[in-house]
């Protein structure tokens, strides 16, 4: 039976690796498609070449997990079909199997699957403000990636802004790397941090690490401000500083880079193209593929795991990857340890309950658009301003995000809404005075990322661009 079974895993972060490990143990040989150069995903991203740094230096408190996962994957490679630098840009025919359209080092291919396990991860969730498109403004994840994978800081003198544990972690990592950290601007109020007390008995390690980063930043003289809203980036061709509000005060700080973000946003396009049913998730304020406790979607033989199925972090992703693999094995009619599934579900559930608390301690700034001027770019690809979007909404009586896209081009550009769809939904729901759920979900379209159009078929289902 296994001869005709071809599971395909999309993504080689903690979820994809966790899934691959379990499938191999069950005697399967999954194809693992990875957009990266080397397996690890974003959190455990590896550099292009060894740069002499230790795991401790590169991954900090997560060093042991990173090393274990990398080693586990490297051991798996002979038992799987691993394809790095491979973009999956379409999912077709998903009635119990189908095929993926992929682009790998300039070659187009179709890859058939009987079972599809999507571990597509997440991107930073960002919101627009005056100057957010300026050279020198990066996402928090970008700042971390530059340091982790390239050994660079995205500036010499930096301000960090946003909401989420990553804010403090990245600021601390930059300080350690020798950059000058001017300030940490937390958009959440100080009072929100009181929620962390209830996290202490459940996740003492998270609290201890958070305190450690906060105290070390403070001891180094880094200002940490709460309840901040940005006014504007200063500088026309580059970042010269940032002007922001804290309480009734307006302040200015000089810097040549700003890194910011508001937690993460699930990458769900492939699940959408696979025909999975979606539901609105209050915690993520986003539409996510429906999944059962193990990761089965509404489509037979299509599974989701990790941040791409809802933001829960790397530890949860690893568990979810293994769980989805167990579901797949079960669906093949094979026995697997039911006890293992129960353990994983319990552990995964504990992390999700911690996420509920973290979300309260690092809240999403729901009032964001009340103070952002209309001239601010909402869509950075198509360069559509908030005023232009508002005009379209009001004159065309728009109340749904796909209509907003069609009539204003917001979300129609190269990033396919990755950088603006969360903001556009928040903005539209604010104008319409409804909850974000009510404005609907931006539908995915193939190709989910830009691919070269000019290619000729080279035969055997392959095409070279």
């Amino acid at each position, binding site marked *: 039976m296994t001869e005709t079974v071809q599971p395909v895993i999309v993504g080689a972060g903690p979820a994809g690796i966790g899934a691959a490990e379990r499938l191999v143990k069950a005697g399967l040989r999954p194809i693992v498609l990875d*957009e990266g*150069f080397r397996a690890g995903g*974003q959190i455990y991203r590896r*550099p*292009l*070449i060894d*740069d*002499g*740094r230790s795991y401790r230096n590169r991954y900090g408190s997560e060093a042991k997990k990173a090393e274990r996962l990398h080693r586990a994957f490297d051991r798996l490679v002979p038992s799987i079909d691993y394809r790095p630098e491979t973009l999956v840009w379409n999912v077709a025919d998903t009635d119990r199997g189908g095929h993926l359209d992929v682009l790998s080092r300039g070659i187009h291919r179709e890859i058939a699957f009987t079972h599809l396990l999507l571990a597509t991860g997440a*991107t*930073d969730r960002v919101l627009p403000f005056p100057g957010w*498109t*300026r*050279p*020198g*403004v*990066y*996402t928090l*994840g*970008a700042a971390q*990636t*530059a*340091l982790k994978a*390239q*050994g*660079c*800081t*995205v*500036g*010499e003198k930096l301000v960090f802004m946003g909401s989420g544990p990553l804010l403090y972690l990245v600021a601390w990592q930059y300080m350690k*790397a*020798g*950059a000058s950290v001017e300030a940490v601007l937390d958009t959440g109020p100080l009072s929100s941090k009181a929620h962390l007390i209830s996290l202490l008995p459940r996740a003492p390690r998270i609290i201890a690490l958070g305190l450690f980063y906060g105290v070390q930043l403070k001891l180094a003289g880094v200002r940490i401000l709460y309840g901040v809203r940005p006014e504007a980036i200063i500088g026309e*061709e*580059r970042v010269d500083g940032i002007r922001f509000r804290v309480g009734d005060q307006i302040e200015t700080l000089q810097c*040549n*880079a700003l890194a910011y973000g508001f937690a993460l946003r699930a*990458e769900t396009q492939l699940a959408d193209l696979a025909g999975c049913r979606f539901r609105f998730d209050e915690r993520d304020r986003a539409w996510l593929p429906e999944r059962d406790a193990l990761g089965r979607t509404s489509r037979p033989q299509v599974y989701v795991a990790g941040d791409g199925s809802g933001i829960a972090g790397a530890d949860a992703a690893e568990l979810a990857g293994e769980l989805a693999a167990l579901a797949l094995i079960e669906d093949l009619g094979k026995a697997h340890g039911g006890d293992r599934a129960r353990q994983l579900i319990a552990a995964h559930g504990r992390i999700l309950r911690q996420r509920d608390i973290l979300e309260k301690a690092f809240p999403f700034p729901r009032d964001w658009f009340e103070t952002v001027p209309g001239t601010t770019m909402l869509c*950075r*690809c*198509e*360069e559509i301003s908030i005023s232009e979007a508002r005009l379209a909404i009001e004159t065309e009586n728009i109340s749904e995000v796909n209509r907003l896209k069609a009539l204003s081009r917001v979300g*129609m*550009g*190269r*990033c*396919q809404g*990755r*950088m603006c769809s969360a903001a556009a939904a928040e903005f539209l729901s604010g104008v319409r005075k409804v909850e974000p759920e009510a404005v609907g979900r931006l539908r995915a379209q193939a*190709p989910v*990322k*830009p*691919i*070269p*159009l*000019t290619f000729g078929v080279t035969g055997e289902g392959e095409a070279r661009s």
Partner: protein
Amino acid sequence: MMPQFIRRYRRDEEPVPFTLNGSPEIGRRGDTVMTAILSVSGGLRHTEFTGESRAGFCLIGACQDCLVTMPDSSRVRACTTALAPGMAFVTTGPQGLKGGCHD
């Protein structure tokens, strides 16, 4: 223009020569195109509509803001492309050259 990125590691790694707007520059083995360019300059491209300068944003191949033009008008996504010796890039002057599927 002032470099945007500051190298903290791999500073003495093997040099990789490339060309930026006609001038010879040096990257390091293990660089992405983005790291190589932003370690010696402050921008990657100008936008098609307003012409404003951009220097990437997400660094994980999602935002597509770091598309860099090569002399033959083709483009690469700078954050997910490894630098190779002899590569050449154009980050100044008229941009918005065709080539992607969303143009």
